[in-house]
């Protein structure tokens, strides 16, 4: 089994950390995999190493290196869990004592997996790599092995300030005011954006960094909601929908979900509406089951809500207002886990004139290269890896369509795609789905 050989590093841990992890990880893994998610245990037991998934991993396709092979991780994990001579017929397991180098290879491997689950689509037994990766990340984070961008600059900041970008209440209210002015300028009439309104039907949670980087996308969502007359509210505290705990830690995951639920309770809303974001939707929709108090809330993605209004004929759209050629990038979490596949397509077909599909598309779509939290990782030389290796396939795929606009519904994907545009000096623009929908509204 080859170990890590390239110069890229996702993590900035010291050798001592890996040494300490090597001593403790076997017990932790054994305990964890026995008591956590059933699909992890069955997946590890089921993999027949047939190799069908390998050619569908875009990282392996791009590099051809052994450490990107989806099975490399499973083999390494099995080796760590079983060891040499352990278990029935253990002599058939190739394995020795765990070395710090192996732990480093494992850690780097799991922080380079995009958790896109494209490999599972082609596995006859649906062996699930993404959840395995997540759990190993969780275990390593307890041994203090986690990327700085996810942990210190991500989850810890969100818990402390309520938003990953450490935006306080005054700054948020300023942004809301600015949005009101912008929309008034664009539309010619003033709308009021409700903040901290008690008893509304929906609490709208957007990813906080969208308020800085992608304000037009947020404005799009707000315009559409205002047009539809939906009873919603924003909140001035803990208003960041993102939850980096999804990528690496159960502890922070549940803390942040609790924060969201607390706000929802305080504002006495009935449902939680998540803006355009894959992992935020995933955290509240799927992982809320691990936080008992969150189960009472219905979590809806903005795509579902708008699509429902569109199908009921409440949304009057004029596609000629968006003349450019638009393609849609399927965010992995929204597509392959939540199953929002046709909703964004219906919205786009109704609001743009020229729509083109990427090849392959829908549930077989390639990841943007920033999945699994990788999109927010800039430390060391990881941005270079993200651009040159991870994002290469996506750029090729988009270039092939010749589209002017890549629409997508995930904040992480947008970040990665914008970085790709900058790196490859590409001509296409990255828009949120609702930005295009709002642009096509007929008042």
């Amino acid at each position, binding site marked *: 089994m080859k170990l890590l050989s390239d110069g890229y590093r996702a993590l900035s841990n010291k050798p001592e950390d890996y040494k300490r992890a090597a001593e403790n990880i076997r017990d932790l893994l054994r305990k964890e995999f026995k008591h956590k998610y*059933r699909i992890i245990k069955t997946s590890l037991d089921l993999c027949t190493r*047939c*190799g069908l998934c390998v050619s569908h991993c875009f990282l392996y396709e791009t590099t051809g290196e052994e450490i990107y092979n989806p*099975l490399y991780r499973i083999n390494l994990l099995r080796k760590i869990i079983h060891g040499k001579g352990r*278990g029935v017929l253990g002599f058939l397991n190739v394995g020795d004592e765990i070395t710090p180098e192996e732990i480093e290879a494992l850690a780097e491997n799991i922080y380079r997996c995009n958790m896109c689950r494209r490999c599972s689509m082609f596995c006859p037994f649906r062996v*699930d790599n993404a959840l395995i990766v997540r759990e190993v990340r969780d275990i390593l984070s307890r041994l203090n092995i986690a990327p700085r961008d996810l942990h210190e600059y991500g989850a810890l900041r969100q818990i402390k300030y309520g938003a990953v970008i450490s935006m306080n209440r005054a700054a948020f209210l300023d942004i809301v005011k600015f949005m009101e002015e912008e929309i008034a300028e664009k539309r010619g009439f003033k709308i009021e954006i409700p903040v901290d309104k008690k008893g509304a039907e929906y609490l709208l949670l957007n990813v906080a960094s969208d308020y800085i980087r992608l304000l037009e996308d947020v404005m799009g969502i707000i315009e559409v909601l205002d047009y539809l007359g939906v009873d919603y509210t924003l909140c001035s505290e803990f208003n960041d929908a993102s939850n980096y705990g999804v990528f690496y830690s159960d502890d922070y995951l549940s803390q942040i979900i609790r924060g969201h639920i607390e706000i929802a309770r305080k504002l006495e809303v009935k449902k939680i509406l998540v803006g355009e974001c894959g992992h935020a939707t995933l955290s509240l*929709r*799927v992982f809320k089951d691990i936080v008992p108090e969150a189960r009472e809330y219905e979590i809806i993605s903005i795509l579902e809500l708008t699509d429902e209004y569109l199908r009921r004929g409440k949304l009057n759209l004029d596609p000629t207002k968006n003349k450019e050629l638009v393609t849609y990038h399927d965010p992995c979490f929204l597509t392959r886990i939540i199953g929002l596949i046709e909703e964004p397509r219906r919205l786009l077909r109704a609001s743009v004139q020229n729509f083109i599909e990427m090849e392959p598309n829908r549930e077989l779509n390639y990841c943007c290269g920033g999945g699994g939290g990788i999109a927010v990782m800039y430390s060391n030389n990881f941005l270079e890896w993200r651009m040159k290796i991870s994002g290469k396939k996506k750029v090729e795929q988009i270039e092939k369509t010749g589209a002017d606009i890549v629409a997508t519904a995930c904040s992480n994907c947008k970040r990665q795609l914008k970085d790709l545009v900058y790196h490859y000096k590409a001509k296409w623009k990255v828009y949120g789905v609702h930005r295009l929908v709002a642009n096509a509204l007929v008042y």
Partner: protein
Amino acid sequence: MANVLLDFLYFYLPYITALFFIIFSIYRLISWFRVPMVIKWPLSPTPKTNRGIAADIVKELVTFRTIYKTDDVYWLAIFFLHISFFFILLHVVTFIFSSLLLPDPFLIFRGTIYPLIEDWLTVWTTFLGIIAAIILIFILLRRILVKEVREITLLRDYFELLLLLIIITLGVYMRIFNVIPIEEALKYFYSLATLNPIKPPENPIFILHCILAQLYIIYFPFSRCFHIFGYFVNGWIVRKGIK
């Protein structure tokens, strides 16, 4: 000493094998179901109803279409491998257990139905055995020659494949060259099934075939061949949607 060993192989090993197989299969399944599935973790798009999920699982089971999506040559190999395994197993099982199902197999089954289809059955199973052996060699070669598969192959994969290949080759060899009269083998299985074992036909190939097959059955609950059961467990989890 040699006698004790032979006695063990002839009279006790089959029961130990059966016990091992049953106990560890159940143990393995229980160990899966003891782990909770806290969250729903689907692989969309998913069927909407439970009936739809079951239909999807069966459809996949019959057609192996996921493999077809990736590699049609490999699909052909895997598809016919499973078909031949299915019929060979069916044949072996009816061979062994017809004695349990029917009151007197030598009178009813052997006396009436079997002679009518005996020749066809022999040709059919021999043919399937040859097919299975060829496919196993193909899979073995694929493991050795294709880079992306070779680099992830473990020692146990070769072991499992070779063991299966040897068992099947021996079986086919016995069928083609009529190494032992079929009645002899049947009598032995019948005696085992009625818990009153007699001495098996003393042919080294037959004995080796039986011992290796039993080794495989003992190893089965720990091998990757346990995917027979896991297919349904995982298949159900990922097809259960969250919408």
